[in-house]
């Protein structure tokens, strides 16, 4: 059981961004992708989720053997078990967090079945407490007027409530101060376990001190070019990405 990305090519307009990406995240593991700006990290998250701006030319993504690209609508992929915590979550004016998450959970129930409201709020408050989110938040509109840190916490809250099989966290550390980073990381770590695979996309090694990955991958120009254990992240932090690129050139 894994989230398996095979020879993925994707473009936006005429520009190819993913150029034959291969990656497999076995269930129960946490993987990290590091890479410079513009290497295609965020694109990977969006392409898997089914963002309408991107076109997949070759390749597939298998979620426990199910081909995500055979599911046309993003909501089908989400209900299959894929969650993306976005770098820049959208505002949904007028829709409260409580109603939003409730609608998302309701969408996972068979037709005619209603979510139990009491149980739902109990569950929601429990997760909010874990993420140290004030209960007043439930009546605020999704991401509207949120600070960067609030947005990220709200993404993790949604992840905790929706209980995905595989989650991709895109630059979850950006915009977080050190306290918020710790809280968010604790929330993510609470979701680690044998029944779930996580892919953490980040620019900086800092996040990986809190969410310690099993495997670190380096992405350059739309491909995974190097993989290693967590020490690879430290090396990248200390020496930058240039040596990776040189090494690839030498290999070629």
């Amino acid at each position, binding site marked *: 059981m894994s989230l398996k990305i095979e020879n993925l090519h994707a473009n936006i307009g005429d520009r190819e961004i993913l150029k034959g990406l291969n990656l497999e995240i076995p269930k129960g593991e946490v993987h990290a992708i590091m890479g410079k700006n513009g290497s295609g990290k965020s694109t990977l998250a969006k392409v898997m989720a*089914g963002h309408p701006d991107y076109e997949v030319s070759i390749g597939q993504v298998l979620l426990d053997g199910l081909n995500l690209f055979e599911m046309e*609508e993003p*909501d089908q992929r*989400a209900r299959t078990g894929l969650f993306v915590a976005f770098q820049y979550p959208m505002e949904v*004016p*007028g829709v409260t967090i409580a109603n939003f998450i409730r609608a998302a959970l309701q*969408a996972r129930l068979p037709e005619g079945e209603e979510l139990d409201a009491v149980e739902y709020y109990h569950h929601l408050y429990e997760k909010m407490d874990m993420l140290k989110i004030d209960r007043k938040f439930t009546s605020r509109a999704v991401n509207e007027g949120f600070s960067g840190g609030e947005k990220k916490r709200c993404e993790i809250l949604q992840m905790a409530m929706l209980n995905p099989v595989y989650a991709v966290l895109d630059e979850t550390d950006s915009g977080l101060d050190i306290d918020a980073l710790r809280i968010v990381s604790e929330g993510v770590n609470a979701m680690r376990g044998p029944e779930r695979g996580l892919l953490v996309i980040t620019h900086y090694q800092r996040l990986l001190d809190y969410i310690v990955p099993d495997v670190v991958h380096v992405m350059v120009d739309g491909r995974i070019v190097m993989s290693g254990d967590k020490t690879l992240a430290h090396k990248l932090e200390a020496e930058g990405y240039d040596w990776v690129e040189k090494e690839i050139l030498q290999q070629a």
Partner: protein
Amino acid sequence: METKPDLNIDRSIGDFHYDVDYEFDAGIGLSEKTIDYICDVKKDPDWIREFRKEALRKFNSMPMPTNWASHDLDNIVFQNIRYYLSQGTEPKRSWDDVPEDVKRTFERLGIPEQERKFLAGVEAQFDSEAAYSNIKAAVGEQGVIFVGSTEGLHKHPEIFKKWFGKVIPTGDNKFSALNSAVFSGGSFIYIPPGVKVKHPLQAYFRINAENFGQFERTLIIADEGSEVMYMEGCTAPKFETSTLHSAVVELVALKGAKIQYITVQNWSANVFNLVTKRGLAHEEAEIKWIDCNIGSRLTMKYPGVIMKGRKARGEVISIALAGDGQHQDTGAKMVHAADETTSNIVSKSISLGSGRSTYRGLVQIGRHLKGCKNNTECDALLINTESRTDTYPAITVRGKENACQHEASVSKISAEQIFYMQQRGISKAAAMSLAVNGFVNDLVQQFPMEYSVELKRLIDLEMEGSVG
């Protein structure tokens, strides 16, 4: 002439009809004979017969308002419409006495059930006449009158005659003239001084027949210091041909009285909905219109308040949803005619597909007045690139000590927002529903709970229809 695209929105709530035998039928077309027929069936007094005929003359002499309004109005063929259809003029006081063929329509629409749950009184109009009308005994004992317009004018002429046609004169516009000529049904309500009706009174207007025109006439008088909430709902089945709904609603709030008038319309996409609604607010009185326009082919409706007494208040809260091929031409009129009067207009419109929303607002504050305030907010939400929205505010504020504020915004539901919601597992239709409900959320919170649930359900249905 404009041609209309196929209007194929799932309007399953109201889109059914049962065959009904009508006892009274004024036939097709409009002439003095039609009016005589209606007067004879309703046993109208002579002054009403005269009033109707004078109104017909005005109607015939007035031009269509197409110099400013949609040319789709030219597609109404007045001579093809049936102006009066009923099974009798006496509404029943018990659902058991309502003829089976009519009763099952209202049962399917859930009216008797709502009455039991939360209403102080109900009037259920089927085509031209009310089939059922009743108020709870406790409300009746307080002296509250809630009957149909015909019964009102027969049994309470002293109150009826004093206010009928006074807030909206016959010649106000072509369609108020038409209504005045052929009106039938609607409610007559009188609330005695100081009586505060706890639960809402409700009227339900159902069009069942094809090629039909419904012309109800409602008059509500809230005497000094009284309070009432009136709610109306409406549906019609989807016919091939167009149907006309042209009501006139007059409200009178005497000193210190409060009237809240709530409409949730769900007309099918073949209905021309051309309604004149206006209230007269005396000193320290308050009139609030809450108007939700979903469905219809063309709606033209601008509820108004004339603030006649010092410190009177007027408010219009409106939500309009223009689905594919529909045009919601709505707005508000606020006429300040005394010092220290305040008015508030909040209008939210949603345009979907080729749907079009138009806001027209009129605010008048005269030169001699002091301490008047108006606030106007107009927000439009566009869903997909074809849809269109226009705003035509007309604000005339004279005098030095008056204040007026106007804000307008246009926003779109972006593909990014829909994608974000879909990534959470929410279907595209449900995501659009959520976004639309979010857009109107602050207004819906002012509605009684039962109506906000109903409105949400209608929005959901409309979104499902638009995504396919």
